[in-house]
């Protein structure tokens, strides 16, 4: 165990110095976790794979700024969150009822069957219309039920700012749903 920890630390130090071998080892150790983290925000399998590659590219470019004392995963999460946010900002919001992205999710992740298809579709459309920074906060805190502190660390903002974003996201969602004829 001690040897493993020492190897891990050595690997992080080597990565910081730009070793491609250390980076490859870190990539294989963390690729699935980073992919899952991104999927939790973007809900699109193809985009999550693309963004995992983009995140690790950014991670490699920033290797000199990495602080091994603070651990690899939280740092990778922050970079992946930024990449996901940039991707969301490039997406056009849905104008009509569509749940294509959600249909692409693995079978293990399913919506509650108690919600009718129409309500679900309208909720997803309203969600897609939210500004990216509000949508990502809502996805992490409300849907994924992540502690606000963890969401704040990943987003690089304060806990208070996370609360404000979630609050604003809920208000905008509510207004949008009302406009679509759903009274929450």
């Amino acid at each position, binding site marked *: 165990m001690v040897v493993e920890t020492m190897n891990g630390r050595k690997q992080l130090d080597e990565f910081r110095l730009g070793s491609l071998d250390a980076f490859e080892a870190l990539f294989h150790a963390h690729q699935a976790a980073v992919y899952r983290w991104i999927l939790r925000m973007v809900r699109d399998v193809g985009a999550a794979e693309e963004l995992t590659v983009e995140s690790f590219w950014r991670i490699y470019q920033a290797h000199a700024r990495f602080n091994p004392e603070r651990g690899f995963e939280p740092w990778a999460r922050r970079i992946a969150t930024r990449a996901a946010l940039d991707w969301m900002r490039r997406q056009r919001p849905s104008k009509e009822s569509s749940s294509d992205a959600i249909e692409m999710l693995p079978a293990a*992740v399913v919506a509650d069957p108690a919600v009718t298809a129409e309500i679900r579709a309208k909720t997803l459309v309203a*969600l897609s219309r939210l500004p990216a920074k509000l949508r990502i906060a809502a*996805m992490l805190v409300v849907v994924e039920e992540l502690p606000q502190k963890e969401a704040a660390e990943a987003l690089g903002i304060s806990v208070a700012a996370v609360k404000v974003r979630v609050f604003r996201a809920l208000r905008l969602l509510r207004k949008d*749903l009302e406009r679509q004829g759903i009274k929450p």
Partner: protein
Amino acid sequence: MKQNSEATPGDETVMKLLRQSVGRIGNDHNDVAPTRDLWPTLLRHLDKRQTAPWFDWALLAGVAVMVAMFPAAIPVFLYYL
């Protein structure tokens, strides 16, 4: 909402609707993984991106030459930035 004491009953309903419509992935789905090993793609990405600065420098040099030869084009160039 556990994390936000200021949430109204309406907000609670929206949160419930959101959770029911989207579905939580969580961090414990070990079967949720990329459909393929992404390392080869990343390697190609690294190689491709490493060549990009040459194009950037060439573009910058072209712009500098253009500005030196046609200073009147600066406002037009700034307009399109």
